[in-house]
């Protein structure tokens, strides 16, 4: 096992190479899933908002009142 980890004296070049490759691989999977999840969440929220706006009857809208402060 020690021989394997030692990599014939090249451990400090071999293992960081694999470490970088592994980190980038994990980042790729994570960032792709996050991109899709966020886009999906936004799309679903937009759909829900559109539906609630469409369902809201116009009569429910409060009339504008003058003379009221912010």
């Amino acid at each position, binding site marked *: 096992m020690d021989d*394997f980890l030692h*990599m*014939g*004296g*090249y451990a400090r*070049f*071999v293992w*960081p*190479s*694999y470490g*970088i*490759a592994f980190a*980038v*691989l994990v*980042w*790729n*999977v994570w*960032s*792709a*899933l996050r*991109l*899709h999840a*966020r*886009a*999906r969440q*936004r*799309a*679903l929220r*937009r*759909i829900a908002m559109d*539906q609630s706006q469409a369902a809201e009857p116009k009569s429910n809208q409060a009339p504008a009142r003058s003379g009221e402060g912010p």
Partner: protein
Amino acid sequence: MATWTWFHKLSSPPHFYRIAGRLIPWFAVPAAILIVGGIYGGLVRAPADYQQGDAFRIVYVHAPAAWLSLMCYTTMAAAAAVGLIWRIKLAHALAAATAPIGASFALVCLATGSLWGRPMWGTWWEWDARLTSQLILFFLYLGYMALRSAFDDLQRADRASAVLAIVGVVNVPIIHFSVYWWNSLHQGSTVLRKGGPAMPPSMLIPLLMCLGGFTLLYAALACIRVRGEVLVRERNAAWLRELGPR
């Protein structure tokens, strides 16, 4: 005719969204098996190189990363050209989705190459044709992504970045042939060369597994990313209302 109909159907965003969702596990599972198997074969089963010793084992991450960085750029430029010529939004989405994947693997290629170069060539970096053209490829990816993010309007971002992607593709053959056209520290092709691969099967098979695994991984990642891009682009599409749990 049937092919064209199929292609036309696939280029419709809702159809692509569903198909890509189903394809992801078919790419991801073999990719994981091939990468794990290839890395195991390369690190454990393959014998040490007679000249480079165990340092040659870096090839099992370096070469697939280099291959992906070139393949991604070619895919990105081809997709950008299709998007520009035929105004297919999905093609622009594929180009945009491919850029960060390609950039990340170009970076892995440069970093692992540097780690390999130090013990073999005695230097971390040399302004040699292969290394410099690969660095330019990385900057082209960064430029493409920066240009896209400079526009608020997606259509303008698609068009402007497509031109950059197409112009930059000239760098791809330069990278590949640089080791033959100029004196380079970098070795020539190991797998695709006259007279067959310069490796015994015990070294070559794990390398081919890693190359195949990384390619399938790209396919899985591209499917996920393009699905995300489609959702961003199809802001008012009615089919979004039928979004299932996936």
